[in-house]
């Protein structure tokens, strides 16, 4: 079994090596995430400057924590999406996707695995950025809330990985790397990272409900900002079910794209 994992460990290791030799780029990624969170937080503060109005609109009384949870989670998912599609695109342009396809390795798994070093780096950033909220939740609502919210993040990342693989396939088959920007924009608009999704038009609310990242943010807010364990568990089950549906759909689509890729070539 371990022998079967060797190729994927090699991919992770090579990605780590490449990242380690591109320190300025790594620092810039970290800085961009911080700037991203900072700018959006400031924007959010300006919009929700009246705490009473904010509380009435969202059900939460602290705009800082509210937006920090949303933006940190959405930042992690965006980095996963962009690192996977970027991997596919650079592998295609550099000819490495051909070389990868010539080996017995599954290209889909390789793409998913390739984002692990970036994901770990981003989880570090996520942990640092959300630490005030974690500290608040631990002191106010206890250990279970924090553990369950982390579990929700992990389960919610599964569909994000599937999105990443599918986007990468689109990048490879149709040579359209810009698709990731569209999906990221949809994630950002529909996830409710900055505002409650009920402010969206009905049709967009439906779409937002079908997006796992929306539920990750909702569950995390319920658990970390309000300590609502019952809501948290309910949201977690919904999220887990949705993730399973995405896994099944993703499997079918990835197989479909896989054969299309072999028929059309990279």
């Amino acid at each position, binding site marked *: 079994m371990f022998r079967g994992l060797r190729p994927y460990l*090699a991919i992770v290791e*090579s990605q780590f090596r*490449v990242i380690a030799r591109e320190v300025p780029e790594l620092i810039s990624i970290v800085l961009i995430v911080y700037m991203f969170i900072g700018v959006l937080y400031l924007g959010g503060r300006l919009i929700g400057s009246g705490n009473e109005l904010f509380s009435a609109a969202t059900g939460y009384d602290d705009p800082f924590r509210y937006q920090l949870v949303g933006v940190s989670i959405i930042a992690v998912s965006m980095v996963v999406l962009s690192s996977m599609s970027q991997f596919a695109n650079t592998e295609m342009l550099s000819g*490495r996707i*051909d070389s990868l*396809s010539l080996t*017995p390795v599954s290209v889909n798994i390789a793409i998913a695995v390739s984002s692990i070093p970036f994901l770990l780096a981003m989880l570090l950033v996520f942990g640092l950025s959300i630490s005030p909220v974690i500290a608040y939740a631990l002191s106010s609502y206890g250990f279970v809330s924090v553990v369950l919210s982390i579990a929700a993040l992990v389960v919610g990342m599964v569909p994000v990985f599937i999105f990443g693989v599918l986007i990468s396939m689109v990048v490879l088959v149709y040579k359209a790397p810009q698709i990731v920007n569209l999906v990221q924009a949809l994630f950002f608009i529909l996830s409710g990272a900055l505002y409650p999704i009920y402010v969206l038009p009905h049709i967009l609310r439906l779409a937002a409900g079908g997006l796992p990242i929306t539920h990750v943010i909702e569950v995390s807010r319920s658990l970390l900002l309000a300590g609502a364990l019952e809501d948290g568990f309910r949201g977690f089950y919904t999220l887990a079910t949705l993730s399973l549906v995405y896994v099944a759909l993703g499997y079918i689509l990835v197989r479909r794209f896989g054969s299309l890729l*072999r028929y059309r*070539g990279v």
Partner: protein
Amino acid sequence: MGRKAIEAVDLVKRYSTYIRLGLFRKVRRDVTALDRVSFSVDRGSVFGLLGPNGAGKTTTVRILSTLLLPDSGDGYIDGFSVTREPDRVKRVLGVVLSVDKGFYGKLTGRENLVYYGMLYGLSRSDSVRVANDLLDLVGLSESRDRLYEEYSLGMKARLSIAKALIHDPDVVILDEPTLGLDPVSARKIRSVIRDLSSRGKTVMVTTHNMWEAEVLCDRIAIISSGRIIAQGSVDELKRMSNAARVVEARVYGDPSRVPPQFVVERVVDGIMYLKASLTDSSDVSVDKLVSMLRDRGLKVLALSVREPSLEDVFIDLVGGESVV
């Protein structure tokens, strides 16, 4: 062991392209990239697939490498079907698709090879050992710890071959392995190919370098417009074609008396340099040409007959065709 190392059986591949007519209009055009391409390669031999640009060489290679599915037909590597058993094919086949692509610029040559070794399931220690051996084989031992992005094109080409051999395949396919290389680097690549052949590997090379094909390959197939138009050994191809032998003569005498079979190339100090072409279907022989010159009072100072080269054969068979 009776199986052929490589077999292409009636490979057909069609592409759709769009011709733009103005800003918004476009017309779909179906292009037949391969039209019932068939050939086979014996074990341990070097086989050349020759053709002009756009003839279908790379499409053939991509199908045989499992990267592309044909519309019909099949390919076999070591008896395994490229369409139905791609994973088994990948275990016995090494491929160089592009000599300067497929590596991480920020990894060293050795790290890149170790990475590919592990992709084929080798342990780290085995991968390092094989990588070191292969770096020796392709003459890159001294540069093994330099970053790939610092390699010259020739070094990249040699590393590509090492990469194709990392899992010790029986069959190696090289797509234009010397394209864009300087003569010294190209010679090193040819030497590696000969070395592979002497180790019992089956090698298939695509190229449009005729001289290279002539000196490297045991058998050659010529592909043009997606069809194999001739295949055989170099000698067989020469016999097949109507390419001319060239008779060159240095002659002294009156230029107005030169027979019409000859072309006067130049005259230096009263000595004429003449050239004539002889095909198998010609009704004149070399002896007859010499007699003609002597009969007209011309003194033959020197005479040579050059056999048609593979390039002559290729041009005779393919004509002036080239897509690009």
